């Protein structure tokens, strides 16, 4: 079917919890795919983005690969969305921001209990860590934010159906009220 809305998704420094929550829209997924086609996403296993309408990004930016992936999404998606606490604030991975990166790496690869053949991994195939985990809007321009850890399935549903129907997305209070 032509003219389907193209959606790409990825998880950077995240736990895939947001993706799992997205899948919690359950049978509504069938309704969704009538209007939507998935491009690069863990759901499709497509490796690179082509031109898309919407990019959903889970997780913050913790290494150089995250930067490249994020830029690929930005270059290919008309609307780029920060999904969940880690993408918006750095979240749990950003807890390491209080510890110098040098200490983190030493603890993990040199001084930690049970470390054998202690050495800092060094291979051009490996992405290097940034000194701090960053929210994605500090690295590229972001158009929308879906709060929550994770955002509930209803948040994904409301947001995507708004866009599909051509409305400015807005989340009612009940969906962003957490206590």
């Amino acid at each position: 079917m032509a003219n389907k809305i193209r959606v790409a998704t990825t998880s950077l420094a995240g736990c895939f919890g947001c993706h799992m929550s997205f899948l919690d829209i359950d049978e509504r997924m069938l309704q969704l795919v009538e209007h939507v086609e998935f491009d690069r996403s863990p759901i499709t296993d497509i490796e690179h983005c082509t031109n898309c309408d919407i990019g959903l990004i889970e997780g913050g930016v913790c290494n150089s690969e995250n930067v490249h992936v994020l830029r690929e999404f930005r270059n290919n998606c008309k609307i780029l969305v920060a999904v969940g606490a880690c993408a918006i604030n750095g979240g749990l991975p950003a807890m390491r921001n209080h510890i110098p990166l040098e200490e983190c790496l030493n603890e993990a690869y040199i001084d930690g209990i049970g470390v054998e053949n202690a050495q800092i991994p060094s291979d051009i195939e490996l992405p290097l860590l940034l000194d701090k985990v960053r929210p994605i809007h500090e690295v590229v321009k972001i158009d929308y934010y879906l709060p929550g850890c994770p955002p509930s399935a209803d948040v994904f549903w409301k947001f995507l159906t708004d866009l599909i129907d051509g409305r400015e997305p807005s989340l009612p209070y009940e969906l962003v009220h957490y206590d």
Partner: protein
Amino acid sequence: MRQLIQCIAENDHYEVRHLLKMLRQIQAHYHYIPEAAIDQLSGLLKIHRTQITSVIEFYSFFHLSPRGQYELLISDSITDHMLGKQSLLEYMTIKLNVAVGAVRQDGLVSLDNTSCTGMCDQGPAGLVNGHALTRLDKKGIDQITALINQQKPLEEWPPELFQVDDNIYKSGLLLNQQIDQGAGIRLVLQRGAKETLQEIDKSGLRGRGGAGFKTATKWKFCSEEHQMERYVVCNADEGEPGTFKDRVLLNSYSDQVFEGMTVCAAIIGAQKGFLYLRGEYLHLYDKLENILVQRRQNGLLGNNILNAGLSFDIEICLGAGAYICGEESALIESLEGKAGIPRNRPPYPVTQGYLGKPTVVNNVETFMAAAGITINGCDWFADIGTEKSKGTKILSISGDCPRPGIYEYPFGVTVKDILTDCGATDVLGIQVGGPSGTFISNEEFDRKLAFEDLATGGSFIIFNTSRNILDMVSNFTHFFAHESCGFCTPCRVGTSLLKKQVDKIVEGHGSAGDIVALEELCQLVKNYSHCGLGQTAANPILTTLQRYPDLYHSHLKEISFEPGFDLDGALETARRMANRDDAGAHLAQTESEHE
């Protein structure tokens, strides 16, 4: 140590409300608050140690780790910067061989920045172990360096280093008036409390701190509460950068201020009053205490004042470096020995203030004006000023003008007239009311100082055309991020985000969307913060963005987005540790650079 702490706690009767005073003494003695002192104090005061550490961490002048025996703090007000503070600070780091924010290896000296110390007309200013230093220059720093290296006690330092001038250039109604000690109290006794309150009501006096609430109404509300205990508090926590008139009033007119407080006490039925003096004005403490002693000796304070059965006394409480304590409910929290976090209002202090009792909190200048009105009658005051803003306003003028200092004007005076008096030429704009106030451009000099036009607590900072407005915006925005009390998220996180976003634009990493993002953030911080600090923290940005949009836009790059931090630099540690320098070990700041 045990004996000292025991002694300090005993002197203040083991009362928690004196915690700040106790910590000040411990800090002065050890140059920090040692763990053991916290433990002992928590036992003596029967409070949890975290209650003590939270107070230590809240106030800038308390430290959990040792500072130098000579703790040097340099005022970071924009006015100090305009007087060459930054190069002096760099000179100090070299002369004293200590980095900013650090303690020298021998423990003798530490150096750091501090928020405006209220010496804007005689900066660059600083503090050494809490005592005000003025007019710092290279010569003075050479001198200070020698004194520190010789380990000379502060008492032996040359007094000119600590000389603080009043710099009164224009006096009006208040500054010209001389009153006999006790004249105000005698008149209240003669005329009656109710009648005096009516006089003050008719005078139209409004609070001088900036908000402009009607003084008589506040006093009336407080007196009508059905409570036995009431309190009078004089807010001398003059922390708004660019304001220093209360320092001058307390230095040369404190009798009139105390007179006004006593008049208030007689009217509302209070037996106890506090002068909350900002820690930066430590140099005034002894002088003010002596005046209180004198007033007690003259029967104007204490039990049975003027043999009329009136009982009232005043206690001076020193702050410890927290701008937020200028907010009245935060000030009350601080008086109670706690961190200065603003309370929910209502209830307002007039119904539930100090220790939950009805409390009047007024500015230094308000009490002084109230004393004058009591003595001279309402017309003396009400005949001057505008319809909605009666009387005069005392201004602290600083920045680019040949005669910075204190000026008193009838309300309604135009900005143009003020500029003429202080000799300012080539003016670009003025920050009226301090960072939380308004910036006005040189097209607005016909505007008037009055609650109905430009309301101000007294700060008036002049910028000439050689200045960059964004330096000022950046300085003020950093100030608010530093002074946020951390209680509510919109302000705690918001002021830090404002700081980051302004820095990003000023440092040239901004692009089109960043101004929009900045504006949205400003509105969020302004509309959702708990107290006045957060609600006004975006004012420097909003008022200048409105007047100089082109200035902001000229700093933007013509690309859709650039990170506000050095992306490739963020990989430096990992690169070094992995011993890599291949292409994949680097990142371009923006994509256009390589793709």
